[in-house]
Structure formats: C-alpha cells, structure tokens
C-alpha cells in the first residue's frame, strides 16, 4: 500500500506542480495590462462577490441558469469531498472522513452522495441541451464543453463506483447514509468476490484521482478557467455602473488607444480569462441579432486568445505576432466588428461575471481614430463639423436658437434662472427633434420652472465623439464645456436627450464637474405627482408602447419615471415590448452609429420597429431624439406611418397640458 501512496504522491505532486506552473504562465500575462485600482472598498467588493458569484444572481436571471447554479453549489460542496479524497490518498491513516465524529461523518457522507447524483443529473441535462436543443447564440457543441462535461460525469461515476464497491465489500461505515452509492452497490456490485471488489475499488479510486488531477490541469487551458477567475472577477468588478470610459493623458510620447493587449488595463485581460462563454452577451447584442460581424462573446474570446499567444512574447519584450485588430482569424478582431457596436450596454447588463465589453471596444476605436486615422469615411465630416462648428451637421452656431424663434425663451443667467435647459444638437437642428424642444419649453413654462438656455453658446456634449474613440477631441470639448458652465454659473441642468444627460452626468464627472443633471422624465414625473402640471383627459393616443432608450435605462436606470408619466397622461401604463427595461433592444443610433451607414445585415432600427409593431401600438413612445429619428425612419420603411405615431414623451405631455 505504501508503494501505492508513493506513486500517488508523485502523481499528485507532479499534477499540482504542473497546475501551478500553468496558472503562473497564464496569470502572469495579466501583469501586461495597465494599472487600475480594483481593490478599494474591500467590504463592498466582498459583498458583490457573495451576491453575484456565490448567490449566482445574474446566472439565475435565465431559467437554464438554475442548472448551472446547482452545479456551482454542488462543486463548492464537493470541493470539501475531493480535498478529503486527495489528502486521504496521501495520508490514509491520518486524514479520512471516517475519522470525524460519527454524526458529522454520516451527515457529510449523505450530503456528498446526494450532491454527486445531483451533479450527474445536471450534467446529463447540460449534455442533452447541447445536443438536442442548443441555443443559437453559443457554440453549443464545442469540444471544450463536451470534454468538461465528460470529465465531470466521469468524476461522479467513479465516485459512485468507488463507494459502491466499498459498500459492497462492507467496509464503508456510512453505507446507510449513502443512498445512491448503496443503490449502485446492490445493483452492480452484489455478488462480486472480495478480490474483485478490492480491484474495482482500486480502479475507481485511481480513476477518480486521475480524472480529478487531469481536470485540474485542463482548467487553465479551457474556458473552465472561469472556475478560478469568475469569483475574483466579481470581486474586481467596477463598483459603479460602467457608463463611461477612462480618460487618456495627452502627453507627447504617449500612445493612445489599444493596439495590442499590453494597452488594455489588467482587469480587461482578467475579464477575458473569466469568460464562461455562456453567450448571453451575444444573445442580446443588437449587432449580432441583425447579423453583423460583431459578436461580443467572440470579442472576449479573441482577446483571450491574443493574450495567450502574444503574452509570452510581450513579457520577454518581443513584438506580438498576432495582430489584435484587423485579422480574420481567432485572436484577432475585425475592424468591422469594432465599428458595429452601438454601446447599448446590453452585453454588460447580462454578463454573469461582469466582463466589460464596451470599454474594450472603445479602447480599440481610440487606437484606430487617434493613432491610425483609420475610421469609416462618414466620420470625417462628422469630426470636422464638431471641431469647427460644435455640432455634427456643421451648421452655424447662431442657428441654435432658431427652434425657439417663435416662442419666448430666456437666456440662462445665473441667479435669475435656476435651471439650464440643455437643448442638445438634435433638439436645436433636427426638424423633428425641434418639436421635442418646443414641447419642453411649453412644459417647463407650464410647470413654473425657472429656466433658460445658452443659445448660440451651447456646445455639443461630445457623447458621440467619445464613443467613437476620438478621445482627444472629447477631452477638449469636455474641458471647454465645463469651463463654460463654471463661467456662467450653471449648476442644475435639465436635459431631454439621454446621451447628453449621461455624458453631462457621468462623463463630465471625470473632469471634476459637479453638476446636478436631471432628465426631463424625472422632472415631469415630479411636477405631475406634485400637481403642478395639470393634465387633460387622455385623447387620441390609443395604445401606447414604450421603448426604453439604452442611455436612459441601462445606463442610468431610469425605468419607472417615464412609465408613470405615460400612465398619468394616457390613463394607463404603457404596453411593453418583450425586450423591455434592462433587456430593451437598442434603436441602433448609439455609439456614434447615428453618423455611420449600416450596410451589413438587417437594420437595427427596423428590427426594433418590427418588434414594436408586433404589439399593434397606436403610439410608439420614447425619450430620446435618436430613438425618435430611428423609429420614424423605421416606421416609414415598414409603411406603418399612417397607423403608428412615433412620439417623444415630452410631446405627449405637452399635448396633454390643460
């Protein structure tokens, strides 16, 4: 027996060493990433980890997530079992479950037995799903997946085999408390000779041990590395919702954006290790859903492949061989995919391990725009117009007040006007969005709000510029705008456009601006509930379907206020599309895509309009000028303009004022 122990000790030692070495090789590549503080507020981080990782909060948001959660908790449980198993193999006399006080021993034996069969059932469940009802958003039938499921199944089978043979031999003290093993013993091993049972036990023991150690060593090379990294990744998640991108320092000699993995932050690289390849991000991505090259899961996968291939070279100071951007192969991300992103955040909203997809894509956009000047042609005009005329359409700034030429609007003056109404570029220049601004003027006046506008001095917020990766231009815009706000004494801002709202509220904070930014839906909701705004009885709106704009909902979690307003105006809560609230489907204009042509796949806005039309609405309501433009275009293309009206919430309210 001591020979056996010696052999096992060698095997065990070698496996553990190999495992440690593999981990070292992989994880030291994370050090290639740029520094980032993800260690502050340890208490909050531990709580996140417990809530999201251990309680599997996001995993459970989908029905099949139950299967995984059970597997996860079972694994934690069996961690104890397997630790005992391995140590027992090294020190059979001193470490054994049977040496524990009897009640504990029996309890654990029972738990392990039940848990193992549960695991086996879950694994069978997973197998059958991948074979018979695979969801189309993941590579369901990947080699990796089947190998892992087989290994786990093997572990459980050998577990039962081992205990069954020991029970059949009569040497298992807790036999009465191990129902499944007992069953297996009586069915399979009854009537076998002592000798064969001993051999069987030996085989099952070694089998279990080898599979376990093999599994351990397979981990760092498969997507199951997430076993090691997912829990820490929940610890390392951003404490605030990721609604912005990090700033860049514009100093001579700096490189900008992400050209190779060494320019990601270390947590971006760790993200790629944590991906479980569940494919939920892909499932909700508007680009993937409309058959575009962008596939969020593959983006993260390609980053991981790139880290693994190029990392060892970069660590030695050599040049990477696999280009991160541009290639057609694994480990490389195409430029098309990079530009397809609408920054809608749906991917980050569903990711169970808090991978941050959007900042990575924008990092690569920054490289393309700032270092290589390689971006879609349509953006040339756009960037130039923003730089020269401070609006995307290149219109003379004094024209910004044309929308209110027929109505009485005050210029903002600190001390005289309490709020700045930030009209935004669309609200000032786009003929359809001007109607939103005019509606807002009516509402603000009716509500007795003290407000004014900046008029010709109002600058573009810079949202599209930042999301497109032109951080240099955004940096300048933000600094100029904040200075302007300071000079004018602007502290409270009402915004109708969610992009402007999010940028002023979240992005500008990185520059030290402390502005109180209010979205008009919340303001109107307050005015209505206070009774300041008097509404007529609802008229002519019919069935209202509400669309949650990405930058209002997912970015800033404003879901309730618009619905309450609609209820107040139309007399009932709005109908919901299937993909609503945090699961809302983008209109396609975010991430600077408003200024780009959509030439591949189906049009995102049409996909969303079709979904809306499925509810047979009379009114399609949104709170964003981009969404309004996209929906009107979509309705025109679907020939539904006569049946359905696309309205902004402000227009609905203004039309309902007494």
């Amino acid at each position: 027996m001591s020979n056996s122990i010696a052999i096992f000790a060698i095997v065990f030692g070698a496996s553990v060493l190999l495992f440690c070495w593999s981990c070292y090789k992989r994880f030291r590549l994370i050090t290639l990433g740029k520094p980032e503080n993800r260690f502050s507020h340890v208490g909050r981080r531990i709580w996140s980890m417990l809530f999201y990782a251990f309680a599997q909060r996001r995993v459970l948001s989908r029905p099949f997530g139950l299967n995984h959660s059970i597997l996860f908790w079972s694994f934690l449980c069996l961690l104890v079992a397997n630790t005992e198993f391995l140590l027992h193999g090294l020190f059979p006399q001193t470490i054994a479950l049977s040496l524990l006080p009897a009640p504990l021993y029996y309890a654990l034996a029972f738990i392990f037995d039940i848990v193992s069969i549960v695991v086996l059932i879950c694994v069978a469940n997973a197998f059958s799903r991948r074979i018979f009802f695979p969801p189309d958003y993941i590579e369901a039938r990947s080699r990796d997946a089947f190998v892992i499921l087989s290994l786990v199944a093997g572990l459980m089978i050998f577990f039962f085999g081992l205990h069954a043979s020991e029970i059949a031999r009569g040497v298992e003290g807790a036999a009465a408390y191990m129902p499944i093993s007992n069953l297996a013993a009586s069915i399979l091993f009854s009537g076998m000779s002592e000798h064969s049972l001993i051999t069987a036990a030996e085989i099952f023991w070694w089998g279990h041990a080898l599979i376990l150690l093999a599994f351990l060593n397979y981990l760092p090379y498969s997507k199951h590395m997430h076993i090691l990294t997912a829990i820490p990744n929940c610890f390392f998640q951003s404490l605030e919702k990721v609604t912005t991108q990090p700033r860049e320092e514009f100093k001579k000699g700096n490189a900008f954006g992400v050209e190779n993995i060494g320019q990601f932050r270390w947590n971006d690289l760790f993200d790629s290790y944590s991906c479980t390849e569940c494919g939920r991000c892909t499932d909700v991505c508007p680009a993937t859903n409309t058959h575009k090259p962008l596939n969020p899961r593959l983006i993260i996968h390609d980053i991981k492949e790139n880290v693994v291939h190029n990392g060892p070279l970069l660590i030695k100071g050599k040049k990477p061989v696999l280009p991160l951007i541009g290639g057609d192969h694994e480990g490389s991300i195409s430029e098309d995919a990079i530009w397809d992103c609408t920054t809608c955040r749906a991917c980050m909203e569903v990711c169970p391990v808090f991978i941050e997809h959007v900042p990575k894509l924008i990092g690569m956009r920054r490289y393309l725009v700032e270092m290589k000047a390689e971006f879609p042609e349509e953006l040339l005009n756009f960037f130039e117009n923003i730089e020269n005329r401070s609006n995307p359409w290149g219109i003379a700034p004094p024209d910004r007040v044309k929308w209110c030429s027929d109505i009485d609007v005050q210029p903002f003056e600190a001390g005289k006007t309490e709020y700045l109404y930030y009209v935004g570029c669309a609200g000032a220049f786009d003929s359809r969005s001007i109607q939103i601004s005019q509606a807002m003027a009516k509402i603000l006046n009716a509500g007795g709000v003290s407000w004014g506008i900046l008029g010709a001095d109002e600058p573009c917020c810079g949202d599209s510029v930042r999301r497109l990766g032109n951080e240099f231009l955004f940096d300048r815009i933000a600094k100029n705008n904040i200075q302007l706000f300071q000079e004018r004494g602007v502290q409270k801002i009402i915004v109708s456009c969610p992009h402007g709202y999010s940028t002023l509220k979240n992005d500008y904070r990185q520059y030290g601006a402390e502005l109180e930014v209010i979205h008009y839906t919340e303001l109107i909701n307050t005015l209505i509930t206070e009774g300041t705004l008097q509404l007529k009885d609802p008229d002519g709106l019919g069935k209202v379907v509400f669309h949650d704009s990405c930058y209002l909902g997912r970015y800033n979690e404003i879901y309730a206020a618009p619905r309450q307003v609609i209820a107040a105006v139309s007399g009932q809560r709005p109908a919901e599309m299937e993909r609503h609230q945090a699961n809302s489907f983008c209109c396609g204009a975010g991430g600077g895509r408003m200024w780009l042509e959509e030439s591949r796949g189906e049009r995102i806005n049409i996909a969303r309009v079709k979904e809306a039309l499925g509810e047979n609405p009379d009114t399609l309501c949104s709170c964003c000028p981009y969404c309004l433009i996209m929906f009107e275009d979509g309705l025109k293309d679907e020939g539904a303009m006569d049946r359905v009206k696309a309205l902004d919430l402000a227009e609905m309210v203004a039309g309902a004022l007494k």
Partner: protein
Amino acid sequence: MADKKKKVKKPRGKAQLITGKCIACGARCEAACPVDAIAMNDKGEPIIDTTQCTGCRKCVKICPAEALEIYYTPEELKILAELEKEKGGPAEVEEIDEEEAKQAAKLKEYKDVWVFVEQTEGEPATVSWELLGVGARLAQALGVKLCSVVVGSKVEALCRESFAYGAALSYLVDDPIFLNYRTEAYRDAVCHLVKTYKPQVLLMGATGLGRDLAGAVATQLATGLTADCTGLDIDDHGFLLQTRPAFGGNIMATIVTERHRPQMATVRPHVMPMPEKNASRKRKIIRESLKVGKADLAVKVLEIIHDSKGKDAVDVTAAEIIVSGGAGMQSQENFAILQELADELGGVVGASRRAVDACWMPPECQIGQTGKTVGPKIYIACGISGAIQHLVGMQSSDIIIAINNDKQAPIFEVATYGIVGDVFKIIPAITRRIRELRTQK
C-alpha cells in the same frame, strides 16, 4: 576766396504714429525697423524711440493701415525749405533704399506669364486651356509673353495644342520618368524651369494634381501661392491681383504677392472661360531636361488601377449642376424625368438616402450626412423634405432650388428658390422650357 558752402545734410525726419489708425496688425513695424527703434505697447501700437529713428521709412511702407508718417521738426522744415529753394523745385524725399533697390531689380528679372498644362496619360486637363485664356489677358496687360509649361513623357503634342489656345512659347520637359505624376519629379522639373527662365506669374489648375504640385513648387521656390482664385487681374503697379472668397464666402479677398516671384495662383476648373482655339498658330518649343534619377524619387508607381466604370461613372461631387430626388419621387421610373432635366442642363442626378435605401438610385449618388458632400453651382432638390441629415451634404451649394408639395418642408428654409407644387408637373415643364430656349438660341 571762394566760400564753400557747407553741404547741408538733408533731414530725413522721424517716424510717428497717427493716433487711432493703428490696427494692431502684429508688430510689422517693429519687425521692419533696422535700428530697433520701435517697441509695442499693450494695445499693440508702436512706440517710436525718436533718438534711434533714422527716418529710413521702412516702417511707414510696411504698415498695412498707413498709420505711420514722417514728421519734421521746425528746424528740419526750415532746412528742407532752404534746400528746396536751392534746388528750385520740390524736394521729394526720394529714398533710394539700397535694399529696396536690390529687391526691385530682382523682381524685374521675372518676366513672363506661365501656365502649367496638366496632363494625365497624355490627356490634357481642360482647366489648363481656360488658364491660357486668362493668362493671355494678364500677359497683355503686363506687356510680356504668355508661355505654357508641359511636363510628361511623349507629350510634345500638348505644346502645340497650347499654341492653339494662345500660348506664345512652350517649355517642355519630356522624359520617361515623368510618365506618371509624382510630386518630387514634377516639382523639380517646374522649379528648374522657373529658376532658369524666371516667370513673374505661374498659374495652375486647382485639380488634385494641380493643388499638390502648386504647393510643392511654391514651397521649394519660397514664394506666395493663392489657391482657388475666382479672379485674376493686373494692378497699376504691375502686381497680380489674386481674388478669392474668404471667411466662408462672406467676403472676397484680393491678395497680392508683392515681394516674391513668381506670383503663383491656382484656379478651379470652369471658373475662367475657355478661350477660342486657333489650330493654325505655330510657335517655338523650348526643350529642357534635367537629371532626375529613379532612385532619387521616394515614390514608385507600382500599378495603375483604372476606375472600372470609366468615364461614364457618375461623380456627384464633381458635378456643377445636380438634380436630386428624394422620397417624393416615389419610384425608380420617376427618376427618369430628373435624368432628362439633368441632361438638358449638363448636370448629374443625385439622390437622398431614402431613394438609395429604396434602391431607386445607386449608393454613389447618395448625398447627405453619411453619403457624399457636394457644393455644386446649382442644386435642384425634387421631392426632398430637407431633413438635417440631407442638408449637411448639400448646404454649401451656390444656388438651391427646391420643389416639394409640402409647404412646411424644411428644405424651403435653405432654398434660394422654392416651388411648392407637384414635382411631376414642374420638372418636365422646366425641361421643356429649357429645350425651347435652346432651340430659340
């Protein structure tokens, strides 16, 4: 005993600022002063140290606002009056500044008016002939010759063609190395010619090639270049007056290259009229050669890919007249009436995004935010609502004519002329009328 009269030095006076006339141009007077007698105050006005001032008048001449003048003290005035009496005539303070004299002499060495004849694969750019037309007028005003400059390989025929358009002389640099345009080679050729033959005016067409070459040549020769001129003239002093729009077209600026030669200008195609062609004119060709080795050039032409669509391809960005259709056209067949009008006017048909999305027109014709940006002379918008996304692609057109049956359409806010009506009646009517006018002519 003869009383030699002591030679009285003619007083030169001192410079002083005429209060209120200084425009704070940026201290040109300070820079011009050879004895550092001028310092600038906070407002950008000059303070002249009269103890240092020699009365050389450099600052007076350089001031763009004529805000500096020479003044004489009463004693100096007395001396001047006496000298005047002696001379018996008005003593003009004729300053023969040595430097000035040298400069003037140098400028006088530059004589002729040159026009660069652009060619691609032997095909001349018609703007070159237009420039010969205006060049002839300039040369006549200056009393000098009009010459053409041809650079290429086996392009002698273009010299002869330039004679037909009015050139009196042609300079030719003909070598296989100039077969395909490369900046360095052409620049060196033109600069060599300029340095040898010294033209006082050099005109080039503001095409892609011309813009590239003109800037390179002007930099090499360290002379001034005015791009995209809409007018060229000669003033009383013999300077070339180069006129072009500035500040977004809100003012017309006339620019003069006073102190450097040649005076270079580029002019866009179709701005100057085409001169008459007289093929019988025969003139002299001066051939020049210069050593330009292949190895000296950083650019190598590897392959020439011709636009597969060839000359028939529609390029809306280059068109002078665009007849554009939008959602109001309602079908692909209806675009035919726009094509008819475009043909009559010598223009091309463009489209808004809706028309392209509906596949009525090809994507190359799309004008707007994500399509092409155009700035033609005339833009006729038919059935286009004029949403901002379209306007941004055509708002810089010189004249916008909008036809739409919706009175409220935003296009009417930017149109020079607007017709509220049925585009299917109006466009054919316009086409008919133009045909009538044409036959009447």
